């Protein structure tokens, strides 16, 4: 009798299952991601794995030859070791799924239905980037390859054929709208972008498209900062010098991958003292956060982080809930269809570990 094919297993933590502080502790730096892939490659029973790490989630999709229950425990332990986050608290906030349930979850994630800002499209690019990383590390076996290819197709279909993206409000547009509530006309506003990562770049481009004339980019990676400056018509501020210029800016967008606070409350207070009657809009898109949370308590300082912007965007999307529901059902059908071709007889028995349910935001799959 031939050996059964590997089962698909998912373990993860996201914005619905864990607080921002926990997600900050579990967010993977480049080095940690590399370490995690190394450990996955060496783990017995794991034949393929894709790690999806974004601002709001860390998920491991793996194909395993061991029992799903054992595999989930192993994956959680690996995540705990790599992030130095204790395994027991991790288990309290993590979720797991196998087989068709894992597949449905992946479809929803890629389509943006499980995002903090429902319907956002950046997540598909992040899933694709994770897929490529796994491929480069030779951890993308045939079943995972097929699952992810079908996932990309389903996500594109959802964006094109359902209403989940109608009136879509990206993080950048939400930030721009907030800035307009503070400043009105944005053209004279001076904007500083710290960090040149993907999210920061999208927001900076949104501001540039609304006519912000005075924009500057401060990034550790000079090439990326220069590219963003060219895209937005901004200028470069050396990374070491931006703290001295803080009082000069009306809008400060932080999106670095720093593991510590870049702008403390004292620095914000000092900046606002030099321009007391002019509001200061701080946008913190980084996880872990770049700006000390208490800064928003200061008069004339408005501080929004990624979760705040996402919440506003979701409020805007509330009226499209019917479309989202329809998309859920359609994606579930597609996932089931795929599962019939790759694993009806192969699905591992539902393990005890899967009793830790998937977070409420994505609801029941049944």
């Amino acid at each position, binding site marked *: 009798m031939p050996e059964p094919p590997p089962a698909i297993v998912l373990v993860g933590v996201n914005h619905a299952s864990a607080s921002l502080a926990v997600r900050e502790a579990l967010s993977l730096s480049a080095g940690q991601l590399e370490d995690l892939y190394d450990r996955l490659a060496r783990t017995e029973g794991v034949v393929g794995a894709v790690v999806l790490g974004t601002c709001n989630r860390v998920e491991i999709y793996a194909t395993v030859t061991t029992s799903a229950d054992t595999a989930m425990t192993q994956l959680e332990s690996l995540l705990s070791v790599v992030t130095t986050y204790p395994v027991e608290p991790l288990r309290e906030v993590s979720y797991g799924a196998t087989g068709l349930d894992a597949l449905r979850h992946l479809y929803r994630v890629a389509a943006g239905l499980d995002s903090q800002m429902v319907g956002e499209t950046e997540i598909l690019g992040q899933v694709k980037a994770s897929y490529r990383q796994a491929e480069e590390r030779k951890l993308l076996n045939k079943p995972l390859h097929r699952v992810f290819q079908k996932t990309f197709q389903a996500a594109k279909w959802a964006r094109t054929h359902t209403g989940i993206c109608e009136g879509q409000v990206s993080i950048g547009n939400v930030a721009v709208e907030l800035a307009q*509530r*503070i400043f009105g006309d944005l053209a004279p506003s001076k904007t500083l972008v710290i960090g040149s990562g993907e999210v920061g770049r999208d927001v900076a481009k949104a501001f540039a498209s609304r006519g912000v004339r005075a924009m500057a980019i401060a990034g550790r990676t000079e090439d990326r900062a220069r590219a963003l400056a060219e895209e937005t018509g901004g200028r470069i501020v050396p990374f070491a010098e931006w703290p001295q210029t803080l009082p000069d800016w009306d809008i400060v967008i932080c999106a670095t991958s720093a593991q510590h606070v870049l702008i403390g409350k004292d620095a914000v207070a000092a900046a606002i003292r030099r321009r*007391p009657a*002019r509001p200061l809009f701080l946008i913190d898109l980084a996880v872990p956060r770049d700006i000390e949370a208490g800064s928003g308590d200061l*008069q*004339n300082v408005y501080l929004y982080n990624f979760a*705040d912007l996402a*919440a506003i965007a979701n409020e805007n999307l509330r009226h499209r809930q019917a479309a989202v529901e329809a998309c859920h059902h359609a994606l579930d059908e597609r996932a089931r269809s795929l599962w019939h071709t790759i694993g009806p007889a192969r699905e591992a028995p539902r393990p005890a570990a899967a009793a830790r349910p998937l977070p409420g935001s994505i609801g029941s799959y049944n």
Partner: protein
Amino acid sequence: MEPDRLLMVIGALVYTCAAALTLASLARRQPPPHQVVFGLVLIGFGIQSTGLHLRGVSVGGCPIGNTFEVLQFISWSVILVYVFTGAVYRVTILGAVSATLAAVLALTSAAVPAWDATRRTNLFGGNVWVEIHAALAFLSYGIFGLLAATSVLFLLQNYSLKKKLWPSRLRFLPSVVQLEAINLRLLAVGFAVFTTALCIAFIHVFAHPAAVFPTKLLSTVLLWIAYGIVLVLRMRQSLFGRRLAWVNAVLFLFALVTLWSVEASRKDNSPEPPPAAQAAPVRSPGDS
């Protein structure tokens, strides 16, 4: 109902329509129809002005001789300020706010018939300076009233931004920076008009000290000092934003209270109107 009073009440109802139209639009999460609101405000302003004019003709001067007339005049002043500043600021919601404030003041004035029971004719004794002083003083009250209203808008916008609320009905509010600029200009213009009214009054005081109500003098000067301090602090950037908005709102309440004190002191102490061309105790904010 007499034609002048009827016209003033109709004017108030038209303002109410403009305010209701705005609220209905906001309830449907749609932008207020600026041109329709502005048109209604202009119609109401025309009707109210006609009513005030008829009343002025019948009492022989600026119609501010009883509580009904005073509230109507302040209501008219609010709209006058809006008509001349609304186009400058290009802020849609300001028309609705002005209309609401004017409607509240005007309808309140009409709600108590007793406030219009006594009419004082030849109130200013033919002294044109006293009449100008009184008119300017009430005009400054109108400006401060509008300032209080825009300050409340500032507080609403600031609160929703600070608390990260996203009420779609508030998305038509002017921005924080716009409201701060509007408030500063209204404060400066209101203070300038109030100061002019007081200067005229003090000339009148020095000429006729017996015609002064001490309580009124004290409360008016205190109010003037308070607005002066607020303006200086704002110019020095020591008072701004949320705190300035609260101060503006509270000061206007204090201004309304001083109006009541004037009314009380006038009822208790007002002598018979003096003969023409003589100074008379005038029931107005800046009168002393």
